[in-house]
Structure formats: structure tokens, C-alpha cells
């Protein structure tokens, strides 16, 4: 076996390639719970992909920092004096202790609580206690800085990537950018984050959460969220009185595993989630019309509704609802959800407040929609402990062969709103990341 071929003797590339079939729409359930596959994922997926860390507005001033993660590695995102951003491993080079332990704040330096090694906000080791007495001038501090990651922003969203060889964020986002812009490019002012990151733990594999936001309008249109919809109905209106829309599309990125889906001209689901005020703001307000002008398309500005999206691997968001989150992996069987809310920076205060309240009500740990997602994911995950259940071949065939690239309104590879083409794209890209160690073959 070629040592370059695999990171774990249990999983040769040939074996991994049998786990996912884009062509036939079949998944092997072991992708969700195998410990050895997860170790390969940390190396080949999370250490090579662009991971969402936060929003530019989380760290507006020099020295502002946010503690977060790339995969399971803790990192510090810090605003520099020249307004640039840096991301480095939150780990002292002396004995490996965390350098910073509050969730966020403003710092002039990061001082390790173990032996007092101090690093400046750029992540350079600047002070070592008793350096003269202990090291006698033999310590070259420049050799002992924490590992730096690449940082890049797209429309206010801050991503980081450990891999020097990986494509730029711009190339990485591939042809998915117009679909991101429906949430993040509605106004010249851009977006801002509402303060506070909500964090919670779900005992499930990260790919369930990522895939659902990438590709799964199906669960929203069928059984998963009926009670969440019921929670938003006016008195006297029941679930039997409403019609779940069917008119819409799904987009599968040509590279990168990203995907999105949305209804067209059907505001029903958005209204059930966000209520009339936000629905009006998104579909009919002067701001909505301005967004259409800005994007050169009323389709992208006002008519794509109830949109879900994932930027591979773990950045997911819902345009119009405006929740965005990273699904941080914690072993194959657990994730931490780190969710925040964004709003148009120039939206009226009452609209910002309405986005805040409706997100708390619907898409949060206690949200009437999100509560039920966790329920499905943990039950599936637990089931995969079974000897037979973990080897089950799962069906991901909806819309197989139906997508085309000649849609009059939507660029890229487009299928119906109830499709799993974007899911197949996500798993196919996962498979490539897992089995192609070189960017020579993997690059866009």
C-alpha cells in the first residue's frame, strides 16, 4: 500500500471510495460513525477546508478577539492594528496550554496561565519569564510562535484554513457565490452580527447537520417541522389549512460540495417561521426592492424564499431567517453548534429586533423548529451502533439525473426543490477530500 494513499490501514482509498456513490445515490452508514474515518476527516477535510469562524463585526477593533475552533483545534481570531485579521492556534508552544480562555474580548497580549509565556495579538512570542536566567540567550523566540492559519473574508464572513496549498476562499466558494449573496449582499452597508453566539451539543455526526442545510427541503416540506409551523399559525388556522409549497429549486456547486435550495414566489414557509413583518421586509419592502436592484435580479433579491445553504463542510445558514452557524465536530458522534444571527447593517432597528426575536423563537437550541432537528439526528446516530444498522445502505437518490445547467433564472447545476443532488454533491466532495491527498487533482 502506498503510504501517501491512506492515513489509516483500516481504510484504504479503495475502501473509502465504496462508501459513497454519486452515480447511484447510495451511502454507507459508516461514514457517520466510524472512529478511524473520523481521524482521516480531521486531517483531510477539516485541516484543508475553509471553516467559518465568525463575522467581521465580531471583532471590529484592534485587539478584539474571538475564541473558536477549526475542527477540534481551538483558535484565536484577532483583529490587528492594521485592521487585518489573524488566526492562530490557541496553544502555548511551551507546554501546550490554552493562551486565551474567555469566549471573546479585547487583548493587548495573550499570556499563558501556566508559565507566563506571552504572545502579542499577531501571535508572536514576545516574552518568556526568566528568559535570561533560564535560557541564557539560547532561546530564539521567533521559532516558537503558535501555528498560523490563513484567513479570508467573503461579504463579512470570516473563514480560516490551515492548508497553505488550498485554493483561495474565492476559488473555494466556486459558483455558489450568487446564492450566498441573497443573504449577505442585499445592501451596500453589508451585514452585521447580532451580539451573542449560542452554543449547544448534539450527539450526532456533523454531516447530518451540514447535509440538511445543504440539500434537505424535503424534511421541512414533510413531517419534521409540522409542529414548528403550527407554533407560528394564527389562532383558528390549523395544519390542515396550509399548503406546503412545491415550486422551487436546488443548486449543487460545480466544485466544493456546497449546496442550496429555495422556494420561488412561495413565501408560506418563510412566513410560518419569521412572521409577516420579516416576510414583508424580505419580499416587498423598499429594502427588498433595493436588494433586487443591487443584485440585478428580483429573483435573487425578493423571490427566492425559505432558502437553506451549506458551504462545505460546516458553514450553514438560512437566508431570510438569517441564522448562521458552524457545526464543530467533536468525534464522529457529536457536534457543537455555534450559531449567531446576522442582519442588514442598515436595516431599521425594529427589523433587527424582529430578526433577533424570531430566530430565538424558531432557530436556536430552544427554537420551535430547531428542537426537532436534534431529535432526529440523535436517534439516527444512536441507531448506527448496531452491527447491521451501521452497514445499512442509505438512499440518497431523489432527483437523480434530473439536474440541468440551462435554467433560465439560476446559474449552475439546478434541480427541483425536493431533490438530493446537492447532498450527493456534498458527499462526493467529501469522498474526494478523503481520498485525494494532493490539490493537484483536487483543486477546482
Amino acid at each position, binding site marked *: 500500500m502506498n503510504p501517501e494513499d491512506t492515513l489509516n490501514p483500516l481504510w484504504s482509498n479503495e475502501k473509502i471510495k465504496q462508501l459513497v456513490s454519486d452515480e447511484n445515490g447510495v451511502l454507507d452508514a459508516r461514514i457517520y460513525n466510524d472512529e478511524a474515518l473520523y481521524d482521516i476527516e480531521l486531517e483531510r477535510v477539516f485541516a484543508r477546508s475553509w471553516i467559518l469562524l465568525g463575522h467581521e463585526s465580531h471583532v471590529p477593533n484592534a485587539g478584539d478577539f474571538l475564541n473558536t475552533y477549526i475542527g477540534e483545534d481551538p483558535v484565536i481570531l484577532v483583529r490587528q492594528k492594521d485592521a487585518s485579521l489573524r488566526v492562530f492556534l490557541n496553544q502555548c508552544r511551551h507546554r501546550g496550554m490554552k493562551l486565551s480562555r474567555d469566549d471573546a474580548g479585547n487583548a493587548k497580549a495573550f499570556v499563558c496561565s501556566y508559565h507566563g509565556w506571552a504572545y502579542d495579538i499577531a501571535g508572536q512570542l514576545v516574552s518568556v519569564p526568566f528568559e535570561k536566567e533560564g535560557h541564557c540567550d539560547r532561546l530564539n523566540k521567533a521559532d516558537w510562535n503558535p501555528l498560523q492559519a490563513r484567513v479570508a473574508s467573503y461579504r463579512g464572513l470570516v473563514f480560516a484554513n490551515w492548508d497553505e496549498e488550498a485554493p483561495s476562499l474565492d476559488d473555494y466558494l466556486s459558483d455558489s457565490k450568487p446564492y450566498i449573496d441573497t443573504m449577505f449582499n442585499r445592501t451596500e452597508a453589508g451585514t452585521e452580527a447580532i451580539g451573542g453566539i449560542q452554543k449547544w451539543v448534539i450527539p450526532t455526526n456533523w454531516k447530518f447537520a451540514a447535509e440538511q442545510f445543504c440539500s434537505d427541503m424535503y424534511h421541512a416540506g414533510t413531517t419534521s417541522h409540522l409542529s414548528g409551523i403550527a407554533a407560528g399559525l394564527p389562532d383558528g388556522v390549523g395544519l390542515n389549512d396550509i399548503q406546503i409549497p412545491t415550486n422551487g429549486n436546488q443548486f449543487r456547486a460545480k466544485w466544493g460540495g456546497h449546496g442550496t435550495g429555495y422556494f420561488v414566489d412561495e413565501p408560506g414557509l418563510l412566513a410560518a417561521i419569521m412572521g409577516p413583518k420579516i416576510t414583508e421586509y424580505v419580499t416587498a419592502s423598499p429594502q427588498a426592492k433595493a436588494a433586487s436592484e443591487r443584485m440585478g435580479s428580483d429573483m435573487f433579491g425578493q423571490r427566492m424564499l425559505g432558502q437553506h445553504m451549506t458551504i462545505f463542510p460546516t458553514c450553514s445558514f438560512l437566508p431570510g431567517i438569517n441564522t448562521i452557524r458552524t457545526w464543530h465536530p467533536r468525534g464522529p458522534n457529536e457536534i457543537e453548534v455555534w450559531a449567531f*444571527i446576522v442582519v442588514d447593517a442598515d436595516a431599521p432597528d425594529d427589523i433587527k429586533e424582529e430578526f433577533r426575536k424570531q430566530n430565538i*423563537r424558531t432557530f436556536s437550541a430552544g427554537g420551535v423548529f430547531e428542537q426537532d432537528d436534534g431529535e432526529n439526528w*440523535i436517534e439516527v446516530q444512536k441507531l448506527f451502533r448496531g452491527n447491521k444498522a451501521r452497514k445499512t445502505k442509505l438512499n440518497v437518490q431523489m432527483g437523480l439525473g434530473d439536474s440541468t445547467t440551462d435554467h433560465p433564472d439560476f446559474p449552475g447545476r439546478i434541480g427541483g426543490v425536493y431533490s438530493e443532488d446537492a447532498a450527493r454533491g456534498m458527499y462526493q466532495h467529501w469522498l474526494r477530500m478523503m481520498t485525494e491527498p494532493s490539490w493537484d487533482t483536487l483543486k477546482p
Partner: protein
Amino acid sequence: MASLINIDHIISSPAADLALQHEVQQFYYREALLLDNIKYEDWFALLDDDIHYYMPIRRNAMQRRGRARTSDLAEYTNQHEFAHFDEDKVAMSGRLKKLLSDFSWSENPASRTRHTVSNVIITQGEEADTLNVCSSFIVYRNRLETQVDLFAGERHDVLRRADNDLGFKIAKRTILMDQSTILSNNISIFF
């Protein structure tokens, strides 16, 4: 909102009259039984029309900023920021509709919960017929086959005298959860 809760005021307040203390505690015990026996509609009837059911998010903050704890804004998200709950009567009635819909998978089958309420400290409210009540809770949740969650925290209520079986309605409930990252797949129960 200069501070979330004036904890020093509560700590230094004189002990409440014994009969009042007894009455408020008995209200809480019965409220807990409603929740633990999934009598959602009866519990909902205890929420007054101006109910504000609020649970801010709690952050890890170094002591140089967090020493004052509940009065310090670095540890808790403020009223303009994200929260776990920030609900009025309409939002709460939506939650009731969800629970009564038969499709509320996160609570169907229902969680088995045990709400234990203690450390009750009563001070006079801003209105003549209201009481400000600080209490501690431990809520055990077990659901489905083996899921166990344990939640602990502090509640700050405004109770209003009411002409109902239990003698009070809840006008305001601020819940300070003793968790930063919520260690559960959801918060589908009430506190």
C-alpha cells in the same frame, strides 16, 4: 439595563414573613408538578398576559470583567443580543400549540422531568400586588431510552397576585442557566 439583576439587594433583604414564604413555595411546588406531569395548558394558564420569559446566553469571561457576576454584562448577553428564550405571550402560546400538535417530536414521547425549586428569597415587587422572587432550580430530564440531561440555575420571577387556584400568575421569569454551552441537543422543556 445597567445590570441584569441586583443580586446584592436580594442578599441583603430581610427574610419574608413566614406565611408568605410558605405560600410562594407552595405555589412553586404545584407549578413544578404541572410541568413534571406535562399539564402544559394548566401551566400556560399561570403565565400572565404581559409575561416575559427570558433566558440570556452565558459566556466565559475572565474575572477582571466578570467578578460582579449577575450584574456584569460580560457574562450574560444583553437585551439586544441573542438569548436562549425571549418570549412574550404570543410566542409562548405558539410553543403551547407546538406541544399540543402531536408532531412535536422533541417532546413526543414526552421527557420525564423533575423540577426541584429551592433557595426561595422574596422581596416586594415594584407594583403593590407583585413579588420579586429569586429561587434556585435543578431540573432532571430523562427521555426516550437513555438520554439524561441535568440543568441547574437561578430564576428571578415577578409573581402577581391572581384569582386562580394557585394564588399567583407569573408576570416575568428570567432564567440564568448554569451552562455556557448548553449540554443537550435542545431545550424543549420549560424552567
